[in-house]
């Protein structure tokens, strides 16, 4: 006496019911609301910072040349913006940083793949690579100047030495974190060699690789500033680092502040406009971004 079994369309409707019960659409807040709620805390923080600065300035802790008021710095900033020299410096630095980053990308990616996938290579240069990552790249500047002379090449050398290890290490740790299950799934589906790398390994590595890129950019930018501060000569284009150095030579604190702000703004802008959205998108697609 077998108990009656569901007819087929009953099974279909049962499944449809289960599916509906077990999935839920996430309601997403409108964009302006998200932007607003993300923007006000930093805005308040910057406001408070300016306030404290102004108060310290008014208290006269330091002479004006050493600690200008926010308004003084603002004026210099506007002047620099108006005559174009700040923008030019930003342009020069961003160009160098961007190009250096791209070269670092082109070297660091295959290097990371090699270290991640080939055991002998990993034993050989894996430790060196992680060691290099903790070496402040400003330490390379004197060597680069002696080796390449005062010029762009020396600057790029320092940038690469700073950024390549980060990018390569991002790739390596990404490869280490790929769940073995995915590789086995790939093999069961018939992926071998190149097709396995293309359809399974590389997509699986992507989040960690992006993390490496983000760090690589930060290292490029920092190394570039270190290099530009020291490597300056009349033939070289004027970058933000050189602008800083100029401010120091002229004892012009407002100019120095303007330079620092420029460096900060570029760093934040690249982070906010490039890496953060990219990473967010990748993570959201994989359901790794909770909330938001």
């Amino acid at each position, binding site marked *: 006496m*077998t*108990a009656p079994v569901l007819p087929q369309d009953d099974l279909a409707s049962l*499944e449809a019911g*289960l599916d509906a019960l077990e*999935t839920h659409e996430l309601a997403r807040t409108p964009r302006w609301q998200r932007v607003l709620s993300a923007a006000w805390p930093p805005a308040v923080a910057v406001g408070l910072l300016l306030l404290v600065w102004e108060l310290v300035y008014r208290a006269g802790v330091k002479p004006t040349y050493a600690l200008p008021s926010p308004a003084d710095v603002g004026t210099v900033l506007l002047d620099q913006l108006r005559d174009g020299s700040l923008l030019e410096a930003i342009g020069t630095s961003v160009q160098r940083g961007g190009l250096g980053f791209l070269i670092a990308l082109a070297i660091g990616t295959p290097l990371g793949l090699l270290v991640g996938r080939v055991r002998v290579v990993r034993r050989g240069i894996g430790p060196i690579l992680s060691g290099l990552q903790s070496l402040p790249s400003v330490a390379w500047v004197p060597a680069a100047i002696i080796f390449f002379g005062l010029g762009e090449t020396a600057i790029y050398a320092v940038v690469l030495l700073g950024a390549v290890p980060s990018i390569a290490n991002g790739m390596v740790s990404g490869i280490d974190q790929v769940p073995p299950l995915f590789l086995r799934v790939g093999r069961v*589906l018939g992926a071998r060699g190149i097709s396995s790398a293309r*359809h399974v390994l590389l997509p699986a590595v992507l989040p960690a690789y992006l993390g490496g890129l983000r760090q690589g950019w930060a290292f490029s930018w920092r190394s570039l500033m270190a290099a530009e501060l020291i490597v300056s000569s009349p033939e070289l284009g004027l970058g933000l680092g050189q602008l800083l150095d100029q401010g120091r030579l002229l004892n012009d604190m407002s100019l120095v502040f303007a330079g620092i702000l420029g460096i900060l703004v570029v760093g934040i802008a690249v982070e906010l406009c490039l890496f953060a959205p990219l990473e967010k998108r990748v993570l959201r697609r*994989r*359901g790794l971004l909770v909330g938001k």
Partner: protein
Amino acid sequence: MTLLDTVSPDLSTVAPAVRLSGVSKRFDDGPTVLDDVSLEVQQGEFVCLLGASGCGKSTLLNLVAGLDAPTTGTVDLPGGRAALMFQESALLPWLTAAQNVELALRLRGIGKKERRARAGELLELVRLRDAGDKRVHELSGGMRQRVAMARALAQETGVLLMDEPFAALDAITRDVLHEELVRLRASQRLTVLFVTHNVREAVRLGDRVVLLSSRPGRVAKEYAVSCPQPRRIESPEVAELAVTITDDLRAEIRRHGGQS
């Protein structure tokens, strides 16, 4: 409990879909995991492999799937390859449901247009046509396993290996997927080798249940399930055979405790 020869006789005339003969497996210097296992799965047959945890069920499936090679003995798959489904959904999270199915087709060298159409059909087959654009994390556990089933079907191997595919699901969903699997197996004429340590599940699904012993893994006993599909997991016939098998399984496990 009926004996083996109740399996319909016409099956024995065709070549089996899976044949393991004298298969043993050791990992490096570890103990022998599988010892002299011989097992045939006929075309269109549904065989459930049952055994205590760690007895080598997954190892056996990996051998059949070609993910690993036996230490001695041979694994024959006259059809060439087998599709394998895992306990966790094992869908690739950077792809949508449909793209996961399409990947299987793509790796078989099927063109883009046909891929799309075939993936749609396969999702329809597991009744998930509308979920094709969903990301893996947007699907429930049961839906994921149905997509994984569609992906396995996309491999068109005819032989489906399943490694505790429903173990992580709740009882209600599992029950529904049992029915789904039985339906697909009949309509697609699949040969299934299904690993579980749920005795009732094995009896609910299989034409034949194979009990593996532990350390080393050997075929301890086989049971033919005579009551016809569709069955229900709650039915007394299923329960009755499940009791017998559970007793044998317990005896098998006890054997290890008594010695050491």
